[in-house]
């Protein structure tokens, strides 16, 4: 069985989706897997819609972009941004998102409408990751909670994820590293409860 996964990370410029990408990259590289990870620099980073395509495989990866209908998971730090990439989602693929909107445009949709759209997909994990992170004492770890929630769907071990988180956060000090590791595990735990 080949190891192969396509993940789209979504959000608004400045929300920190590249931290999730960096953890995935580091963990995959540590497992000698191939990676391609596209990201957005420039104009859209200024409060616009941004996304990153992360592809991990033990086989050669050709395209830097995921074809439509081939993403296994979309992880979003914002509920409307999650839905922007639906054409990329595989049939029965997973949608994972924070429920908190980032309202920097006119006529931002009603939250209930957004949530209903998300819930109309069989495989979804809609959580208040920001609150979970805040309760743990580090609201900046929202993205790590979401990564934790997605982790059981990604063919990388918890140890690999934790090692990658350590690599990325160790220079920020022990406390921040510990909070991020906690956020990862909490996200995983909550997703397990929701899915079961």
């Amino acid at each position, binding site marked *: 069985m080949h190891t192969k996964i396509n993940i789209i990370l979504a959000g608004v410029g400045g929300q920190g989706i590249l931290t999730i990408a960096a953890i995935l990259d580091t963990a995959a*590289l540590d497992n000698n897997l191939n990676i391609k990870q596209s990201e957005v*620099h420039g*104009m859209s980073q*200024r409060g*616009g819609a941004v996304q990153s395509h992360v592809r991990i495989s033990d086989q050669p990866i050709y395209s830097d*972009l995921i074809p439509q*209908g081939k993403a296994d998971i979309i992880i979003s730090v914002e509920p409307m941004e999650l839905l922007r990439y*639906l054409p990329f989602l595989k049939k029965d693929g997973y949608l994972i998102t924070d429920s908190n909107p980032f309202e*920097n445009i006119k006529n931002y*949709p009603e939250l209930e409408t957004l949530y209903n759209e998300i819930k109309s997909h069989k495989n979804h994990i809609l959580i208040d990751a920001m609150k979970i992170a805040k309760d743990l004492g580090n609201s900046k770890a929202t993205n790590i909670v979401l990564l934790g929630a997605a982790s059981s769907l990604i063919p990388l071990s918890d140890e690999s994820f934790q090692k990658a988180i350590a690599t990325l956060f160790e220079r920020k000090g022990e406390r921040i590293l510990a909070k991020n590791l906690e956020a990862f595990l909490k996200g995983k735990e909550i997703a397990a409860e929701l899915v079961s």
Partner: protein
Amino acid sequence: MKKLLLGNEALAQGAIDAGLSGVYAYPGTPSTEITEYIQKSKIAQELNIHSSWSVNEKTAMETALGMSYAGKKSMVVMKHVGLNVAADVFMNMSVSGINGGLVVVVADDPSMHSSQNEQDSRYYGKFAMIPILEPSNQQECYDITKYAFELSENLGLPVLIRLVTRLSHSRSGVTTGERIAQNNIHLPKISTQFQLIPMHARGRYKHLVDLQPDILEISENSAFNTFCEGTNKTIGIIASGIAYNYLMENFEDGNCPYPVLKISQYPLPKEPIKELFDTCEKILVLEDGYPFIEEAISDFLGENRKVIGRLSGDIPRVGELNPDNIANALGFDIVINENLPKVVLGRPPQLCIGCGHNDLFNAINVLKNESATQQVFGDIGCSALGVLSPYESINTLIEMGSSITMAIGASNAGIHPAIAVIGDSTFTHSGMTGLLDAIIEKTPITVIISDNSAIAMTGAQDSAASGRLITICKGLGIEEDHLKVITPLHKNLQENIDIIRDEINYKGVSVIIAQRPCVQLPKEKKDKLKEYTNVSIN
């Protein structure tokens, strides 16, 4: 162990390992991270590789040529439209040729993610009659850059590397190799080589023309152009650069049944293209950007069309390639689902919270309500976001520096008020000469330099204008009474409106410097800026 690098970073590492002595650049998406990687590289610092930003792409390329003249290896980096700014030296240094290896890196932006057009730099390379290299993946970004320096020195010509956004800004594992030593200073062997007066230039141009068969032969034998046999000859495929990846994505384990010619070096190799023509029923050309290859190999009158691609409509003529539009061209049964749920709205980029441009546009909009004839000529950079809602303050946006000169032309035509809004770095890049035009003719325009002391849109790099704007404007000859400094803050709104209104009413050139540091700047830099803000004009 492989390093995980962006295409841009792999290229930068390749240049360091090729024995680079200096990189010259002006920031521009998607090219910026190349120079930034070298700026941050410890090895580059130890090797004393020059890497600070230039004022614009033209000065960057000329400086790189100067380093090459002295015998050392240099690189110049820009986004596609930057090559327009540097086109003068670009076209002439292929005639003079180079001494130390000189590599020109241009990152194109198909789909205009962060640009105003999708021009294809391969045309420039062909125009200058120099070799073009087009990597298809991150490893090739590294390998091709090392090769490019070698090729440049072997031919005595600059070499163009063309990137596209999706390769510049995508990461993958890259294996790096040995580092080659930097060159020592050595002057050109032929003393007339760099003296392009007509009598010498004719000889140099003849030399460039005479080199063309050699350049073609090198390309035909290049390891970066590969031909892969296929059993199904109904289509022969030519895929250049990143298009090759999107093609292969469509076949399980990359097993494409059609013959495929991958192009990563130009001029176009004739032999394998002829073989495809002779053996295949149709030729499908896959290239990101303009139909450069397709145009070159198509039947001009289209009467005997065997070649398909963007020109034939099999691939969309505009926008970047992706695995899906290539699948469509191959006739695969895929449904490209463009329909998003109605609840998803567009989220265009916008000014940051706390951005000084915001308060400037608010002031300009009040004045717009006072004068139905007011026209505002905008410029490139974050201030360009004044085009969009909620401001809609800016009427034009074309290219670097055009705010001031278009305001002059409109004023000549009788428009008043004609206001130019330009960022500080855009002003030093291409605005100063236009301001001199206005000063010479005393054209009644109001130039507002929105000074955030950063090249903000590309990541708040150092601006050449920082601390120098007043001196520059005075030096160009602006009258002191009509050079004003304002602080664009909400609390100053009324005062700022009054100052701008007064200058609009002045029948000559005024410059208003709206000064407030970019919110993206780190605190140390903001503190340093305080040293020169609030400096009085006198």
